[in-house]
């Protein structure tokens, strides 16, 4: 028909689309300026600006202190060690999940992801129950690992196992095995075929996963806070101590800047590997590449991976549940419903309601902001500004949550942003951490929607609305739900910022767990375990639902 006219109309729409995109990005930019950049800048300025001048000399002062250098060194090496250990343990797992078919695989896939969305406080308490004083290992063999670096490293592996399995395994499952087979046909040994065919295809995904693990462990807070004792502290923990306990705001500000720079560098490298990963690979449907394990070797590998998952991932969770039930008649759970004047002024069970409400609101905000940003970022020819914004959106993942929390307290207390006594502060802070997940989940899917499909629909006479409904919506809807699920889970577990801004009479679940753990006595400990178990179950249910929705293209997490 009249192709020329369609062409013109399409082009016009594209230019209009460009303008609309700028409009789309305005809200996320405003959100980040008001609730991220401004509070962080405010707390840094509070520490480094005295008598109207910037005390930049403090940076050199702080860096020459031996205990601060000790913290920097520990932060780096434990992150490197955690990353190496996680890769070592999880890469075989990624292979098994990618290539083998076995009963219960989908369930197990969801189960190994549970730790990742668990609040760090719960991970910390689970490991305390496993390797701490009076923990399972202590009871059985008298082995205690708390206050050693091993407890921290193991908890980090536990926490990040899923990052590697999902990022690397997801791609591995879609690599066409016939390419490697072809290489072997042509005379390559098994090893060299793997080295020359599979490894190069896989390397960017491994690098991206390793960088994410490095980022998460480099900025680790809750885990180190609970398991580290006074000797071990990461930058993030040190920022917390300097601000909240020692009240040395200038040192805290310098550390915040250092962490900011380090995280920026990590994210830049990550963005680069992700872009490389988007280069064309011959991908096939994951369901055709997996098959039953064959031969003793493969069965042994599967058994090894399962044993690893059982020991490292399931055991801590099981111990947590067991400790929560370690009193007759669910006493710890029942205690949650009674008002005790000791720790809170409300029954701890109220924390569940608070948490769910906050998380729902945070999810709505994160999906709104992240969704808009993702739509704006979809264009492959997006400008440098927009691409830069992509990286900026990731920053809240790595910039000290503690800093954000304190920044909220001191920055958002005057009109027009007088939110200090409002409960909305908590969901806003949680949404900040949720947005990166939404963007990373939505972006690949939005980009994968082939513009030609829409054009074809238009050519066939579909109205734009109908084209959107029939083409985009089915693909985007799932991703949107998955994104919402992730945002919900991380909001539920957010601890670093929430711990400062949640009002003492409105604690969230992780805050309540941390406070209960800080109180003496079996009843408080048991209640902490019971609350952790409840939190874990909520997260696990959210994940199982996600696993049903998951599309193979969804997500870089």
């Amino acid at each position, binding site marked *: 028909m009249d192709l020329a006219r369609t062409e013109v109309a399409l082009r016009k729409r594209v230019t209009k689309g460009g303008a609309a995109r700028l409009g789309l990005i305005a809200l996320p930019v405003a959100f980040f300026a008001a609730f991220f950049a401004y509070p962080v800048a405010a707390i840094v300025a509070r520490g480094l600006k005295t008598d109207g001048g910037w005390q930049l000399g403090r940076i050199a002062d702080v860096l020459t202190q031996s205990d601060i250098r000790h913290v920097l060194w520990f932060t780096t090496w434990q992150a490197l060690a955690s990353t190496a250990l996680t890769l070592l343990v999880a890469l075989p797992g990624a292979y098994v999940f990618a290539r083998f078919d076995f009963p219960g695989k989908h369930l197990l896939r969801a189960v190994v992801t549970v730790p990742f969305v668990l609040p760090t406080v719960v991970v910390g308490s689970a490991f305390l129950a496993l390797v701490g004083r009076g923990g399972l290992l202590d009871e059985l063999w008298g082995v205690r690992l708390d206050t050693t670096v091993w407890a921290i490293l193991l908890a980090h592996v536990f926490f990040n196992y899923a990052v590697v399995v999902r990022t690397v395994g997801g791609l591995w499952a879609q690599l066409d095995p016939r390419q490697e087979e072809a290489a072997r046909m042509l005379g390559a040994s098994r090893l060299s075929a793997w080295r020359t065919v599979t490894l190069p295809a896989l390397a960017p995904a491994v690098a991206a996963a390793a960088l994410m693990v490095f980022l998460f462990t480099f900025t680790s807070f809750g885990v180190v806070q609970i398991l580290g004792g006074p000797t071990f502290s990461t930058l993030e923990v040190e920022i917390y101590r300097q601000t*909240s306990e020692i009240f040395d705001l200038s040192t805290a500000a310098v550390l915040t800047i250092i962490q900011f720079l380090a995280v920026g560098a990590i994210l830049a490298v990550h963005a680069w590997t992700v872009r490389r990963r988007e280069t064309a690979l011959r991908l096939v449907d994951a369901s055709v590449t997996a098959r039953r394990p064959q031969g003793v070797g493969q069965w042994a590998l599967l058994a090894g991976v399962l044993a690893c998952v059982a020991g490292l991932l399931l055991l801590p969770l099981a111990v947590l549940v067991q400790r929560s039930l370690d009193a007759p008649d669910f006493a710890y759970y029942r205690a949650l419903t009674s008002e005790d004047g000791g720790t809170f002024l409300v029954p701890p069970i109220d924390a569940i309601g608070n948490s769910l409400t906050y998380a729902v609101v945070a999810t709505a905000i994160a999906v709104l902001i992240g969704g808009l940003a993702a739509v704006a970022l979809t264009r492959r020819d997006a400008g440098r500004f927009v691409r830069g914004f992509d990286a900026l959106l990731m920053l809240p993942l790595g910039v000290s949550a503690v800093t954000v929390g304190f920044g909220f307290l001191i920055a958002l207390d005057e009109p027009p942003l007088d939110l200090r006594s409002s409960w909305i502060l908590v969901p806003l802070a949680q949404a900040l951490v949720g947005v990166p997940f939404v963007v990373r989940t939505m972006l690949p899917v939005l980009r994968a929607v082939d513009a030609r499909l829409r054009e074809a629909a238009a050519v066939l006479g579909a109205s734009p609305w109908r084209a959107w409904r029939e083409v985009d919506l089915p693909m985007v809807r799932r991703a949107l739900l998955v994104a919402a699920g992730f945002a919900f889970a991380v909001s539920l577990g957010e601890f670093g910022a929430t711990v400062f801004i949640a009002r003492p009479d409105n604690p969230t679940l992780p805050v309540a767990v941390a406070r209960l753990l800080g109180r003496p006595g079996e009843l408080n400990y048991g209640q902490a375990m019971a609350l952790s178990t409840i939190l874990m179950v909520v997260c696990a249910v959210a994940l199982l639902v996600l696993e049903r929705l998951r599309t193979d293209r969804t997500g870089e997490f």
Partner: protein
Amino acid sequence: MSNTRKFTAVVVGLGLVTLSACGSSESGSGGSGESKTVTLVSHDSWAVSKSVLADFEKQSGYTVKVLKDGDAGQAVNKAILTKDNPQGDVFFGVDNTLLSRALDNGLFQPYEAKDAGFVLPEYRVDQDKHRVTPVDTGDICVNYDKAYFTEHKLDPPQSFDDLTKPAYKNLLVTENAATSSPGLGFLLGTAAKYGDAGWQDYWKKLKANGVKVVDGWEQAYYEEFSGSSSGRKAGGDRPLVVSYASSPPAEVVFADPKPKTAPTGVATGTCFRQIEYAGLLSNARNTEGGKALLDFLLTKEFQDDMPLNMFVYPVREAAQVPPEFTKYGPQAEDPQTMDPAEIAANRDQWVKSWTSLVLK
């Protein structure tokens, strides 16, 4: 591309709904301005008998809301950070070790409580401005596990010097001076005893003698210390702990059945005197209510009630010290004390040096 616009419309709409929902509930819950509610911000150890608090509410007509905001140090720091728009009207729980930080940062506004004249002279501070009101006092001392020392036929230590002796190697657990108020008190006690020049040497010896440092008092006393009832259950293996002179009475009061004597004792030569203050927060919304609450904290009724709730001693003359206190743990006779100005001048530097020396 209108699809993206529609998508936008949907999400924007959703967002607006959310935001307006926030707005409405926010205006509904902004109750802290009501003059009939007075809000007390404190640390986790705040406690009062319900009947005593109810009496105050009935007599004054105010409803008291309490926000417990973490450990003593954290609560003070957070209060300072939020002083322009405080969470409440009165803050209770800044002690003499951190007092200068609160005063220098302008946390409190002047108010002299009605019964200030009844405060024992040794606890009065800031007499020209009256920014804080003393409320309670106590001694931070090393406690020992009586059973351990009987079993090992060893005399328990009595002084700071004793703690560095080989007989007590690997027996003491203390708290991080940077994060815990008894930990800081113990450090200040050693600084008072050995002076600015000598305390580092003392701690070197203490470190060589195997002192263990944990982050908080709860962990030290309830997990590491072998003498407390929870510590015994938790398998604590340190028979010496930095705690309070009132801890032995607490062991008896909370025990069921009650033992004839306390299972723990106090090394009376290792004590440091701690005094806790309350004050009217600068920018408090309900200053009248805050003043009434401060008055209440010095009344005889509250001062008599307080000791067995928070295990501290009253500062009001002729207030009753419960018989359990005198029976199970004598108050230290000559505790180390330090002039607030000296604490203010040295605290942060001492803590820093201590951290490098002992922890790293």
